[in-house]
């Protein structure tokens, strides 16, 4: 095969796998930010918290990181409902969520990050699953399991969430909350309860993403920072409230980054990715995959 073509194909495939990790990180945010309108800028920090607990619990129990991520998800769900209760009490009820709510999550992010440094120190922590150093090869295409497994795991989680949102009553209620909270109230459903539940799910997804992150790379307290810009960009490009849009945007983002890195050098890949987002915001603020308002 033509060497440039091989490079391109591999760039696209590795971009899709990277996009899988981004999708894992962004899907929780798509629920909180896209559907509930809660600008949880602390989401990547919570993901890294999940990654640290995965390392600690996984090392202690001798289990696979992704399994631990699933097992600890209920705890993160509870943490999420707790955070939402505080957020609702102090900000949403007062109608001050825009500015103060944003600042609140900014503060939470800071507290989490510094808290992780104080508990675990600034060093890297890791937990390798058994398949960490295996690579599958399809002809000229490489599929390292380190990237493939987290990507598939992310797709499974997001798929399950998608089915849940579209098939179950509570899921439909969450979608309704995103549209019109008052209508729900008329149906005798408490929108606050629904939102609390949904935010809990969003944080449980942060735990899953943390597990995926541990498989991909060692973690340190500041690991979340590189994801902040990326996952918000993905949510916006994906058209906010749409999970399929979010996944598409994540994959596209990964592919753009990796193809740029392959052919033009990695120096420019963040500028290309974020410059692209700026253009999307400027000319198509409803997102690439969103419907026009």
């Amino acid at each position, binding site marked *: 095969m033509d060497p440039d073509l091989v490079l391109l194909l591999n760039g696209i495939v590795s971009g899709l796998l990277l996009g899988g990790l981004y999708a894992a990180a962004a899907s929780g945010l798509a629920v909180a930010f896209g559907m509930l309108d809660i600008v949880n800028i602390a989401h990547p920090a919570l993901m890294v918290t999940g990654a640290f607990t995965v390392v600690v619990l996984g090392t202690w129990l001798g289990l696979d990181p992704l399994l631990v991520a699933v097992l600890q998800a209920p705890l993160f769900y509870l943490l999420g409902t707790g955070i939402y209760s505080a957020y609702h009490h102090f900000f949403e009820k007062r109608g001050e969520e825009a*500015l103060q709510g944003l*600042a609140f999550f900014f503060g939470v992010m800071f*507290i989490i990050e510094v808290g992780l440094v104080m508990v675990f120190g600034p060093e890297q922590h890791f937990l390798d699953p058994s398949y960490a150093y295996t690579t599958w090869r399809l002809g000229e295409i490489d599929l390292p399991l380190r990237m493939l497994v987290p990507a598939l795991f992310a797709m499974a989680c997001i798929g399950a969430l998608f089915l849940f949102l579209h098939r179950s009553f509570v899921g439909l209620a969450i979608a309704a909350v995103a549209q019109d909270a008052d209508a729900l109230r008329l149906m005798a459903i408490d929108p606050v309860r629904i939102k609390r539940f949904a935010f809990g799910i969003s944080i449980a997804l942060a735990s899953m993403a943390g597990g995926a992150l541990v498989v991909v790379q060692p973690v340190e307290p500041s690991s979340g920072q590189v994801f902040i810009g990326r996952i918000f*960009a993905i949510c916006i490009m994906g058209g906010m409230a749409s999970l399929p849009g979010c996944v598409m945007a994540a994959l596209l983002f990964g592919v753009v980054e990796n193809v740029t890195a392959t052919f033009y050098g990695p120096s420019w890949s963040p500028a290309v990715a974020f410059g692209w987002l700026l253009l999307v*915001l400027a000319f198509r603020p409803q997102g690439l995959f969103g419907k026009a308002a």
Partner: protein
Amino acid sequence: MTPNLRFWLGAALLALVLFLSLRLLGNDYAYFAGYFVLQYVVLASAWNILGGYAGYVNFGAAGFMAAGAYAAIVLRQALGLELLPGILFAALVAGLLGLGTGYLTLRLRGVYFSIATLCLAVVLQTLVVNWDYVGGSRGAYIVHPRDIPPFTSYAEYLFVVMLVLAILAAGIGRAVERSSLGRGLQAIRDNERAAEAVGVPTLRLKLVATTLCGALMGVAGAPLPYYSGYLNPEAAFSLAYAVNAIAMPLIGGAGTWAGPVIGAVLLASLQQAATVTISSALNLWIVGWMLVIFVALAPKGILGWFRRRP
């Protein structure tokens, strides 16, 4: 005496008292600590113009500040000009950057605007890192003269410059608040569509605000390379500036000219004190908790807290 005259006279008097008492103290550390606090007064006041009055949250404060710092470096490299022209040039560059950002992003409402400013900071940082003329990722060195008469030391000079800038920033904030610009921005914050409907020229007002906000942030950053003698992109685009630029006005009381001043003096002094006393990660932790507790319990900041009680 008009209130305006009273404000400027009062500010000048305060500055003079501050300057003389620090000189009596005769200690360079006081100047450095003072500079640290005052740069945040400028930065917080700048953020407040857009964030406090109009409700547009700028996450990219560090980007604008770095633009100012690097503008000063470029001017020095290209023409050999020192700090004061550097500040003017920084205001120009960062102001234009603000205007450009405004054009690109101000059709975005609320949080979209915030995310766009965050992206802008990333793009700017990438550009600076790849721009060898200003040192690129290696950073730029600025060797300043050891003495600069009539000041006793360069630290004192920097402090006085920043003091003047801080007073100007607070004064500009106050002027905006009392002008039709400020009232227009407040109308935008309360309800942008309604403001538009009654004929407030929202886009133009916002553009003026982003330009002013950008220019002031640039001004806050221009002395930074002179202060530290060395500047690399990581230091210039430090997350600490972005966090503090938001935290300080909110803690002091956003949407008033005095709020950012109070917040900056309080929070920056606390950080400076914590750096040389507690001196561990705990220091930053306190800032995070202060921010969370203040926005939760005192949503109008310290000022709002006082105003509620007659």
